[in-house]
């Protein structure tokens, strides 16, 4: 999903951010600011994303054709660009979400092993 193939810490963050954006857009179209706010709100302020790093991520997703952009009018009557998922994006979201779930279950099992039968 990420445009880079290497896996380094920054990369993981990028991949994660991409997934969060896709998920947010699954509920309908939104502009940049709304996406940022939504991520913060839904994660109960655990995930704070620098708003500036949102925009490169959006460009990356646009390039991969997972989302498309269209012009619209925002809440305060200013011109804004709205993003929404494509069919490809939706498929990618499902795939990545499944992967992520599997990953987190595996992590949980390792980090909190079932109590061993002992003594």
């Amino acid at each position, binding site marked *: 999903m990420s445009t880079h193939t290497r896996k380094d810490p920054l990369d993981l963050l990028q991949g994660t951010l991409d997934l969060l954006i896709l998920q947010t857009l699954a509920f309908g179209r939104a502009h940049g600011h709304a996406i940022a706010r939504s991520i913060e709100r839904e994660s109960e302020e655990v995930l704070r994303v620098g708003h500036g790093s949102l925009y*490169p991520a959006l460009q990356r997703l646009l390039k991969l054709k997972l989302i498309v952009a269209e012009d619209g009018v925002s809440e305060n009557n*200013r011109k804004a660009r709205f993003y929404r998922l494509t069919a490809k994006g939706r498929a990618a979201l499902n795939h990545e979400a499944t992967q992520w779930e599997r990953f987190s279950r595996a992590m949980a099992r390792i980090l909190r092993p079932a109590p061993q039968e002992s003594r």
Partner: protein
Amino acid sequence: MLTRWSRRRKQLAEEIQAHLALETNENLEAGMTPDEARRAAQRRFGNELLALERSREIWGALWLERLVQDVRFALRQLRTSPGFTVTAILTLALGIGATTGIFSLTRALLLDPLPIPDPGSLVRISLVVRNGGSAVPDLPLNNFMIASLRRHASTLSGVFGWCPYFFVLQQDNGLHTYDGAMVSGNTFQVLGLRPAAGRLLTPADNQPGGGPDGWAAVISYRFWQEHFGADRSIIGKTLTLSDHTITVVGVAPRGFEGVMVGSQPDFYLPLEYEPVLRGANSVLGQRGNVWLITWARLRPGVSFAAAAAQIRALFRPVIDETLPADVLHTPVVEHSGFGVDRGSTGWSTLRATYTRPLLVLQILTGVVLLVGCVNLAGLCLARATAREHELAIRAALGAARARILQQILVESLLLACAGGAFAVGVAWFTDRWLLRFLDNKEAARALAVHPDAALLAVTAAGAALCALLFGLLPAWLASRLPLEPALRNNSRTLSRGARRNFAVRRMFLPGQLALTLALVSVAAMLGATVVHLRSGALGFRPENILLANTDFERLPQKGEALLQLYRRMMVRMQQMPGVDHVSVAEDTPLSGSSHVGAFSSDESPEPAANPFRYETDEVGANYFAALGTPLLAGRDFSGTDADAGTCILNRTAMNLLFPALPAIGRTVRQRISSMSTGTAYTQECRVIAVAGDMRYVNLRDTPPPVVYLPVTAKSDHLFSMTFVIQAHSLADARAAYLTALHEFAPATPNTDPTSLAGQMDESMARESLLSVLSRFFAVLALLLSGIGIYGLTASWVARRTPEIGVRMALGATRGGIASLVLRQVAGLLALGALVGLPLAFVGGRVIRSFLYEVNPASPGLLLLAVALLAVAAVAAAWLPARRAATIDPVEALRVE
């Protein structure tokens, strides 16, 4: 694409602003003050510019946009400093242009392969005749030797002979001479060519009396186009060539110009045509005569070295089979052999003469270009110093070192491109000038043939290389600036970077001066050579003497009748206004060709080692008078039959043949070996006069001993002599010749007469060429060095302005300050001279074969070169020195 990106950029910027506006609004609603709200929004967002840049990175092809940015910026920078820009472009244009101009001639003469399949397997076989101490290479063979080689040389798959010849074609508008060749029957097969129309010659055409189509001839593609409009109906038609009927059987492929570089043969005929053409003068049947340039192809899989070894080893078997017995056992033949050379580039007489001069010229242009690039590097460094502040800010703002490097390099590349574009024009002019100077048809054809695309490619490559040369170092140095000192806004104390730049420039300059000194010395040496050659004692007076070759081979008159024709023509020419003396000769001085003979007398028998050490010439009456050579004793030839059995010696010959007693009246014996029959006989003649010595074969050698014989009806080359006409002006002489020719031999083709002065100039054409061009390059290098000195001195004065102010305040005079400046230059000059003098000496040694009576280590010459350089240096430093001397100390000391 660029507009799309800038649109997207704007779009994104707007989007980000909208984002910030929303965030600010929310903050306002949350109760912050407008200021706080905005700041909080910006903090929350992070670095806007970074967001924009990283988004831009994702769009891809960032490098292109950056490149365009750099180009625009570089153009702006160059426009603001026109002096630098013009200097740089001019330097590059002249340097690159001259280099590629000479390179195109070099390539045309030396490098281009023949347009045949697999030229690499073609070899040229020649005779090397060793006579005493000297060796004469590149002599032709004959058809007997070729037949013998075909039988014995297993490493060769085909051998053929080529004899260049001029044919006279009968056309509607008269007689015209065309270049052509007589070739072996298998020539075109060995060369591997296919006809453009009809067929090419085969061994079946090469029979005595003609082949199945009579005398078959192949014409060139060019001739076919120009004279027959590429109409195929010419195949099978007959033409009248040199008074004989030939049949056109085919057309050679397009672009094939024979194997002799620079000539454009239009007719190819078989070798057996030669006796028909030349009648009694035919050499085809003479076993001892050599006249065929020989080529061969290596068998597939055979290396050049193996074939060359076999051919050289075959020398004795071949000549045992072919040469007449009498010639076979002479010492000359004993020591001779075959020479084998690669034939892929054909053969060129011009190449033999001009290879080394062209290489020398190429080196000289390379040196000038180097000096130019070093100069430019210094200038670029100066600019980099001036831009230090700006570059430091860029680095502080986050520009990568590579990015700064790229930006400065783009500027160099732009200059190089502009310089390269003008260089093409300079190269074109250089070539035209070279052609006019060489005034040689072969050179003209060689240069005209070339496609300019290759020249452009070479120019572009040269420009790119130069850009790297002069741009890389300054760019690299500039990108490694330590930031903090450069950011300090204090133009008085120079940063370490600027000081280092200046030191580098100071280091460059002596090197430049050394190269310039070497160039100036070489130019001086070559100039002195030309002066010596021209002013040396010639032994004759070259002014106003016209030399007109004759081509009377096809006239009906032969022998005695032909001799009378000459005499009548000479009488007629003598009568014309303005003509002083008319004579005729077989060879003229400095023509490049001569004949040798074996002479002896009672006192001086023929030496065994080198019997052919005398030059011999057949001349008519008044020859010496026409040339202005004094007769030291005796009387001239009379121009009548009473001359039979007499001869005239020059002073050197007299000293050799008759060292003790006077020569007049004594007998000289000549041993003549007939090339055709192989027998030898002795001919005697009585000495009737002694003439002064003259420069004979070339201007360098001391006058050789010459025995002059009278022109008789039995002379070998009676059909091709040279009229020597001395008149009040060349125009008078020319008019006389044309009148006589028209009256007595109107059917002969007009060979273009030359002047003796022109022939003399041509004999030193190489040296003249080198002298003129090296002088031009020396002046160019002096100019460039001057610019370098000016730039450096100006920088130095600018740097030391406060110090100068202090000095003046303390009482230094204007003269003192000026001399301070000049002392700096003198120091660099001394260093440059120290390195340059050995270089000049080495340069002189390299070109010593072109020098004449010039010592490369001559102190006078080197001193002259140093003096010239010093004058240029002082002239260049004068303006900055004057400026330094007129500094107002108050201004200088004022702190900004």
